[in-house]
């Protein structure tokens, strides 16, 4: 008789909070189902009632963690419709914001992954090192999250050249912390034991489920919108797409860690580029948005963000379609979780970066027959943490 473990419905750290139901026999997950809609706000419909300038503030609030990727894709989309070529300084500033966001998002994920594995020190330390990145955002844009930097044909605020050394200083500090974290993760035998060979997604699975972002790159699928459909300053700087072959949780950690180094390098090159551009040259004038259709893509920390807009020559979009990366990545849970133990399923679910903190709040395991509560969320996390302890003891 299989037992159902509902996880959720509230995933406050995720674009789309969901209810997951794990169908278990003993400790083995046999099937998984999910249900969305708890976070439905009707953004696409709302967007039709806003002017193009206002839509930026709306799409920024699709997701608070990747709050630049959506305006980024929307700006790419509108610039395609209006056929606008943005200035180089705009390109650099946009890429700097995009990459800083990737760093803060990956750090956030690393912290939470540490928490699920029972490394609360990792959680606390990583979030401590994430704060300087948010300080940078506050210095550049005026807000820790939701930066409101983008507009059609430009950015709203310049990065003055005299602020560049201060940004560089934070990046230098960050690189040392990244070295420390990478060393801690790569050398820890317990983390290896908990994550290697767990939640494996093969190359075929990724292609079948059309997964994107670090989830796909960790399985050897070499896709990255920044390179495949170049936008902003990415063609102007040197960087490489990080991939791994194994497709397990460890590969996903590795890809994200190494991507942060790439991001730091992209930002440094963009800062160099900024020095050669004229200060204040951050927008091009726009007369009117013509009638037409356009698509815009951007690589968010979790994968490809896709926006489609149809305009009719008025001030409002007629149709606005948004596709966020987590939505496709979540489907891979069917491959990564089925057949695993519950304690491994916890980290397998977290590996896709749907941010699993719901388990601290509203997860219960029910006995399917009697409806009796068996486990709650914190106990579920504890199960995962106990397993780490066990391995830790064995290895000592």
């Amino acid at each position, binding site marked *: 008789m299989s037992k159902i473990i509902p996880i959720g419905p509230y995933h406050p750290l995720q674009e789309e909070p969901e209810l997951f139901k794990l169908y278990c026999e003993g400790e083995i997950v046999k099937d998984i189902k999910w249900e969305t809609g708890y976070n439905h706000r009707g953004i696409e419909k709302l967007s039709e009632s806003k002017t193009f300038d206002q839509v930026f503030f709306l799409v920024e609030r699709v997701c608070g963690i990747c*709050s630049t990727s959506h305006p980024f894709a929307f700006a790419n989309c509108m610039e395609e419709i209006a056929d606008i070529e943005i200035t180089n300084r705009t390109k650099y500033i946009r890429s700097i914001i995009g990459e800083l966001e990737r760093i803060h998002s990956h750090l956030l994920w690393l912290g939470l992954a540490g928490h699920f594995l029972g490394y609360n020190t990792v959680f606390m330390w990583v979030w401590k090192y994430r704060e300087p990145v948010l300080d940078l955002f506050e210095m550049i844009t005026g807000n820790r999250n939701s930066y409101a930097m983008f507009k059609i044909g430009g950015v709203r605020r310049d990065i003055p050249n005299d602020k560049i050394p201060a940004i560089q200083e934070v990046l230098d500090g960050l690189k040392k912390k990244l070295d420390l974290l990478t060393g801690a993760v790569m050398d820890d035998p317990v983390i290896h034991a908990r994550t290697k060979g767990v939640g494996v997604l093969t190359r075929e699975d990724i292609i079948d489920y059309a997964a994107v972002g670090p989830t796909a790159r960790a399985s050897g699928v070499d896709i990255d919108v920044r390179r495949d459909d170049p936008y902003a300053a990415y063609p102007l700087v040197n960087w490489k797409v990080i991939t791994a072959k194994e497709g397990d949780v460890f590969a996903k950690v590795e890809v994200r860690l190494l991507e942060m180094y790439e991001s730091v390098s992209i930002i440094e090159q963009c800062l160099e580029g900024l020095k050669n551009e004229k200060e204040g040259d951050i927008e091009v004038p726009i007369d009117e948005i013509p009638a037409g259709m356009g698509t815009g893509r951007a690589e968010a920390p979790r994968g490809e963000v896709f926006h489609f807009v149809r305009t009719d020559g008025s001030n409002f979009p007629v149709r606005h379609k948004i596709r966020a990366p987590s939505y496709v990545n979540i489907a891979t849970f069917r491959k990564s979780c089925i057949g695993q133990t519950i304690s491994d399923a916890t980290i397998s679910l977290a590996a896709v970066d749907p941010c699993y903190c719901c388990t601290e709040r509203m997860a219960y395991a029910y006995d399917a027959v009697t409806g009796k509560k068996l486990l709650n969320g914190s106990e579920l996390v504890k199960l995962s943490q106990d397993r780490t302890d066990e391995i830790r003891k064995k290895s000592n």
Partner: protein
Amino acid sequence: MFHFGGASCNNCDIEILACLTPRFDVERFGMQLVGTIRHADVLLVNGSINQKDKVRLLELYEQAPKPILVVAIGACGCTGGIFAEGNTFAGPVDKIIPVDAYIPGCPPKPEAIIAGIVKLLHK
């Protein structure tokens, strides 16, 4: 404290989590996130509430041990914010359950969240 994230954009949620981490560290005021509403003295609600959330928020409020303090966090929690015109919007938090404190901002800074909750301590 028990945290209920409605139909939000996660910004307030990660700022609430940031409050727990070393720079802000609300545990020094004796505050801790708990796993279930039955252990909570404070219910933090953020995000606009859609029709699907409304039922669950009411259910949670009924399960909560009384007296419980309810804090609406962020522009969406206080008024509905940018999503107030949405087709699934079911009313700001104070139209559904009584609210003791409002912390505006999109998202409010962790300092603002801490200031709001510390004020409640003296209530």
